[in-house]
Structures are given as structure tokens and as C-alpha cells.
């Protein structure tokens, strides 16, 4: 029996389904108080806060994760749809909430009073106020004869993804950077409801952020398996973790290469660039797609790790380490490279706490935040991982943390492979749509740790067990602000190296 605790919130675990009626509905004042008292605790952070219209009401759901006892407190409040929508902002006291409230404001025209930064998030096509368009974005302005503005984008110099960066500069120095996104909005969350077949939803999940296909798919699988009460065997869970760690290795090493392109250090750029290829090629050998699309399916897998594949994986890891280790040793002791890394784009732990940074963006500034550790899922339930922590908060920390995480991931994969031997269960074929009956009137939340950080998917089902609302949160939603803060008082020419050091997702943010 689930009962609300003293805060009025109900506690669930990661990838757990509860009946919607068990999610307490509070008055906004009480809700505000509960969220406040929860967020005052250091181990709590908000993983999702969103609103959706139902039965003439606008229902707000907040999910606050406790990193110590691996629980997630869920609570809600409601307001009539036609009410004059005004609420007291939580962001004023708890700035990490800013992005959630901005999103709610944009989508549902709820005015948060005293919100310090109530700006559009992504200009969703179904936003409430269509008169707000991307060309009228309210940029922060500093009036002075001495300052100038530089606008970069929305077309990226390397033609990757679109985003607009507005720098207010004093000579070569940046006073303020404002990042305006939303150019990539595809309406994924709505498509999720319109496309009802399982395979369509899986394909959609894989394209939330193309470089985090496995991370997002694991979150979706967590939701679906929990809602349909499908148990997966331990061997499959371990194999899924191997997939996730492989994705981490491939993306991190690619980023290290890109950072060295940014500093024009050719040797490291080409070594890391060449190392990324065998990493993603292994994923292709495994599941037929270099980015792991198709690897994660509900309730089973088409691609079980055979002995032959395990053998190849072990060989790949050895070869990878052979070039990776010496190149890292060289890179992190080369003065000309270190000069471009150290003390560049420094952010403080306090700043990262304020913006609610997640994943490696949090860990490079000294915040211990890792879902694998705090809210174990998939294979991480079966073994202990250690999370690396750096405190510098500069480009160096972001580069070095990648190096540490790659080394760790290699160890985890070896560890997981060793454990696989004890679990010789047969991995079933994935469940078809007809075999999955979702729990009716339920809420489910699923957290995973992609290579960028915490991914959160939330689903709500109706009386017939159909998904009526699906909420996706990519780590980039929080972390873009970190890039803007990094640029404060930095030379504008250091922007690209900082941008590469975060490598955030445009489409993950824009959805």
C-alpha cells in the first residue's frame, strides 16, 4: 500500500508504475511548500515537472528524486483549464526549476509570478501563444556604446544542428551569451501519442537524440516494461548495460577528438577520431546499426550477445586501450594542449547546482549526480559502480572526465561480461504489441543515465491502458545553461572549444 509521506508526496522507485489516483493532488500552496522542503535537502533534485490538460483541468506533476535512498517523490496539483492561470514561481527560490516552469509557461500559458527568466524554451508548434515567434525572442540587452553583439547561427559553421548564439562582447571578451533554441522542434511528444504502434514509438525514441539512441530507448523500455509488468531476465539487463556503456565510450572518444580539432592539435584529433570508428562499428556488428538503433526492444532482444560477439568485444576493448591510453597520457601532459584546456570556461559547483546540471556536466564541477548509482536500472542493479568526480569545472575537467569515464566504462563492460557467464538464460524475442497490456490509469517514471546525463521519461495511461501523455526530458534541457555560464568573461574565440567540451544536443532539447 502506497501512502503519501509527511510532505504530501508519494514515493516510488525508478521505473515503477503507480496508479494515478495514488499520486496525491495538493493545493498549490501546499504543493509549493512540499516542493520547497524537498528541494532544500541536498540529496533531492527535480527530475521532471510538467503539466498536461485532462478533463477540463490542467494537471501538474512534479517528480523529485532522492539520490540517497533511490526514491522519487511524486506529487501533483491541478487548476481549471479556464482559470486565470497565475502561480507563484518556484524558480525564484529554486532556480533549477526555471526550465520546467518556462516550458509550462510556453505550452500552457501559465504565468509564473516573480520568475526571474521567463523566456520561451523551444517554440513548440502547439504552444499556447502563437504570437510569440522565434524572431521576436527577448534577448537580454546591455546598452553601451562600447559593446557590440555577435550573432552566430542558427546555421552551424559545421552544418550540424541549428541553434542561435547571441554574444554581447566587450572587445574580444564575452559579457553575456544567450542561447536560443527551438529551430529543431519536431513535436516528438505529440507524435508519440499519434503514432500508436510499438515500432513507430521505438523509432521515435531512437530519434529523440540520434547519438543517445540506446540511452533514450532504455528509458522507454523501462516505461513500457513497468507499465505492462513485463519482467526481463538478468542476462538481458546486463547486456543492455553493455550497450549503454559502449555508447558512452563511442560518444566520449568522438568528443575528445572534436575538442582536439577545436584546439588544432592534429595528432590527438586523428587518433581519437579513428578510435570512435571501431567503437561504433562494434555496435553495428552487434545489432546492425552503428548508433545502436534496434538494439533495445521491449521485453527481449533480437540481438543476444553470442560467444562469438563477446570474443570480438573483448578483442575490441584491448585494441582500443592500446591506442587510447598512450594518446591520453600524451595529450594531458602536452603544454600547448593544456593551455587551451585549463581554466578555460570555468563554472563553479554553485552555478551548476543552480541550473540543475545533470550527468557529466554536473560531475565535472563536483556534483555527484549519476542515475546509474543513485537510481539503478538495467544491469546496474546487479553490480556496484563508482562515479568519477572532478571539481575544476573547466574545459580540462570536461575532457579529463571523459577520459576517466571511458576507462571506467571499459572496466564495467569487462565486469559485465564476466557476470554474463553466470546467467545463461535464453534471451526471449521482443514482445509484440498485442502481448503488452499496459496498466490502466497509471503513472510511470523511468530514469536512465545516457552519456550526456540523466534521461527522464514519464508516461500516463487512461482507463483503457492507452498512453495519453508522454513526457521526455533530455539532459541537454538543463545543461545548455552551463555553456552560457562558461562563456562569461571569456574570450569569444574560446566559444567553440567550450561548445565542443559540452557537446549538448539541439534536437534532444527541442524535441
Amino acid at each position: 500500500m502506497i501512502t503519501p509521506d509527511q510532505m504530501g508526496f508519494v514515493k516510488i522507485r525508478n521505473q515503477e508504475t503507480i496508479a494515478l489516483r495514488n499520486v496525491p493532488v495538493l493545493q498549490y500552496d501546499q504543493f509549493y511548500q512540499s516542493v520547497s522542503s524537498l528541494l532544500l535537502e541536498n540529496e533531492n533534485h527535480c527530475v521532471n515537472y510538467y503539466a498536461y490538460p485532462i478533463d477540463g483541468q490542467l494537471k501538474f506533476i512534479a517528480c523529485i528524486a532522492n539520490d540517497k535512498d533511490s526514491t522519487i517523490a511524486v506529487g501533483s496539483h491541478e487548476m481549471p483549464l479556464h482559470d486565470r492561470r497565475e502561480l507563484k514561481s518556484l524558480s525564484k527560490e529554486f532556480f533549477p526549476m526555471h526550465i520546467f516552469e518556462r516550458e509550462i509557461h510556453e505550452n500552457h500559458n501559465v504565468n509564473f509570478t516573480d520568475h526571474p527568466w521567463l523566456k520561451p524554451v523551444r517554440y513548440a508548434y502547439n504552444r499556447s501563444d502563437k504570437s510569440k515567434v522565434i524572431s521576436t525572442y527577448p534577448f537580454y540587452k546591455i546598452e553601451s556604446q562600447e559593446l557590440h553583439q555577435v550573432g552566430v547561427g542558427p546555421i552551424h559553421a559545421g552544418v550540424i544542428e541549428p541553434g542561435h548564439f547571441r554574444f554581447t562582447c566587450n572587445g574580444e571578451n564575452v559579457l553575456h551569451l544567450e542561447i536560443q533554441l527551438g529551430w529543431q522542434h519536431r513535436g516528438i511528444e505529440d507524435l508519440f501519442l499519434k503514432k500508436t504502434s510499438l515500432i513507430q514509438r521505438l523509432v521515435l525514441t531512437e530519434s529523440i537524440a540520434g547519438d543517445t539512441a540506446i540511452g533514450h530507448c532504455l528509458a522507454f523500455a523501462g516505461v513500457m516494461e513497468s507499465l505492462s509488468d513485463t519482467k526481463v531476465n538478468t542476462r538481458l539487463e546486463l547486456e543492455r548495460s553493455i550497450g549503454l556503456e559502449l555508447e558512452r565510450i563511442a560518444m566520449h572518444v568522438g568528443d575528445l577528438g572534436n575538442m582536439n580539432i577545436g584546439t588544432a592539435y592534429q595528432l590527438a584529433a586523428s587518433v581519437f577520431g579513428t578510435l570512435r570508428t571501431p567503437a561504433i562499428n562494434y555496435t553495428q556488428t552487434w545489432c546492425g546499426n552503428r548508433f545502436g538503433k534496434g538494439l533495445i526492444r521491449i521485453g527481449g532482444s533480437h540481438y543476444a550477445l553470442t560467444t562469438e560477439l563477446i570474443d570480438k568485444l573483448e578483442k575490441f576493448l584491448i585494441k582500443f586501450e592500446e591506442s587510447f591510453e598512450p594518446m591520453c597520457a600524451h595529450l594531458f601532459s602536452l603544454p600547448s594542449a593544456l593551455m587551451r584546456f585549463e581554466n578555460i570556461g570555468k563554472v563553479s559547483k554553485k552555478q551548476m547546482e543552480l541550473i540543475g546540471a545533470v550527468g557529466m556536466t554536473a560531475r565535472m564541477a563536483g556534483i555527484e549526480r549519476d542515475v546509474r548509482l543513485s537510481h539503478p536500472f538495467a544491469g546496474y542493479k546487479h553490480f556496484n559502480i563508482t562515479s568519477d568526480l572532478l571539481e575544476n569545472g573547466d574545459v580540462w575537467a570536461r575532457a579529463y572526465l571523459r577520459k576517466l569515464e571511458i576507462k571506467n566504462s571499459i572496466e564495467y563492460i569487462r565486469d559485465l561480461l564476466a557476470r554474463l557467464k553466470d546467467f545463461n538464460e535464453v534471451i526471449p524475442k521482443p514482445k509484440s504489441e498485442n502481448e503488452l497490456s499496459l496498466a490502466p490509469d497509471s503513472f510511470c517514471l523511468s530514469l536512465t543515465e545516457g552519456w550526456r546525463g540523466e534521461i527522464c521519461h514519464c508516461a500516463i495511461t487512461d482507463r483503457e491502458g492507452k498512453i495519453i501523455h508522454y513526457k521526455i526530458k533530455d539532459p541537454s534541457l538543463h545543461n545548455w545553461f552551463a555553456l552560457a555560464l562558461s562563456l562569461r568573461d571569456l574570450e569569444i574565440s574560446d566559444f567553440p572549444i567550450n561548445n565542443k567540451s559540452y557537446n549538448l544536443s539541439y534536437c534532444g532539447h527541442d524535441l
Partner: protein
Amino acid sequence: MIPVALILLTSLLFPGIVVKVKALVSGRKGPGLLQPILDIIRLLRKGNVYSNTTSSIFQIGPTIYFATILFCMFFIPFGDTSGLISFHGDLLLFIYLLGLGKFFLILNALDAGSGFEGMGANREALYSMLVEPAFIILFGTFSMMAGYDSFYGIFAHWHLTSGSYFVLSLLAAYILIQIAMIENSRLPVDDPKTHLELTMVHEVIVLDNSGFDLGLMLLANAFKFGIFGALIANFILPEHQLLWIRALIFIGVIFLFAVIVGLMESFRARLKMEKNPQFILTLSSIAAIAFLVALIISNKLL
């Protein structure tokens, strides 16, 4: 005519050699040696696209830049054979012709009216201004040592017979290589390969130039490298040798210079932008040291 012909010949291969060396060092095959020059030829056969915001400056800038570099080439002697043009104090004209070319390059960038290009022009102007003293101190020193104030005079009386001349030649080669790197916007002050406008110096200046104009600018850059290579070669060129042997040494030195550029660009990262002026000023200090050494050798100190 000999030096001009040799510089033209080597310049055409220079960018290709640099690219090839960088590719080989990083474990790739790389494009053919002629690829960069073929690219330039392709550009030269195209027309120009001019934005409505530009004026006539934008249209004549690249041509003037190219003309000044070509003109500079005529000053370069070939050991004790003078260049096409040679007179008292020609090395000053040489320096200011380079400056004039830069000036029009910068005007060309400002005329385009883009936010990036102004930024790049600003940086380029600063770096060329800072690099000038190094060049003048260096050639002032040689002029004093040789007792002549033209390129031909200096090189005709420059003999690698004594140790002190040898040391000075080495210093000169080092400074000239670095100056050439800065003048041509290469590592460590600039990265010719970057695609990021915000970090560019030279590349961003030519961002709005296209077709024939862009081809001219790229060709001028190749010539510039050839000219600096030729200056270095002149210090080393032995006298009383057969003409073809000297020509081979001349070409060899320029190609060696290209290999050095390729290697220098492979094994280090570029500087942080704010460290660039400091780095460039160091060259002036080294030139000043060369000047002091020269004073001591020639007993002119005190």
C-alpha cells in the same frame, strides 16, 4: 628572372607538401601534392559573387593583395645574382608592400560588413602590426653586418664562412619561419583548417570572397610562403657553385621549409587567442638578441 621562376615553381607545390606532410603524420594518405593548386585553378576559372552591401573596395582588394605579393617576389635575389628589382633600401619597400597588401585585405573584410569579418580584421591588423618590428630588426641587423641596405647587397655579402654568421643565419631562419607562419595565418596563432568563425583570424577575412577573388588570395598566400622560403634559402645558398646545384639547394630549402611547416602544425595545439600578441612579441625580442649579438661580433658595442 631565376629567383622569380624558382619561387613560382616551388610556391605551386608548397601548400600541397604541407597538407601531405600533415596527412602522413596523422596516418592518412592525404590528397595529391597538386590538389591545393588544382583547387586554386578551379576557383580562378569561376566568376565572383558580390554582396549588395559591398563597395568597389571589396572588388579591388583581392587584386591589390595579389599584386603586392607578386611585386614583393621581384625583390628576392638569388645569392649573388640580384632580383628583378634592386635598389638602396629596397627591403623597406618590401616590408611596406606586404603591409599595403594586408591593409587592403583588412579593408576588404570590413567592407563586407559582417560581424565576423570585422572581428577577424581586427585580429589580423594587430598581429601584422606586432610582427613588423621583428622583421625590421632582423634585416636591420643584417644590413649593419653586411654594410648594405638592399636584399641583393646583404645576401651577396653574406658568407657562411665564420661561426658567428652561421649562428646568425640559424636565428634568422627561426625568426623567418615563425614570421612566415604568422603572416600566412598558420599555427600557432591561427588554424587554417578550422570551420569556426569565432576562432578564425585570416580565414574569416576571406569568408565573403568567392571564385576568382578567392583564388587570387589563396594563390597570393602560396606565393608568400615561397617568398619567405626563398629568403631563408638565400642565407644558406653557397657561392662559387654551378648554377643548377644552387637552384637545387634553393628549391630544396623551400621544400624543407614546407615539411617543417607541416610538422610544426601536427604536434601542437594552437595558442589561446589572448596569448598570440605575447608570442609574436617574443619574436621581436629574439630579433633584438640577434641584433645585440651582431653588435658584439662586429665590435660596435661601446
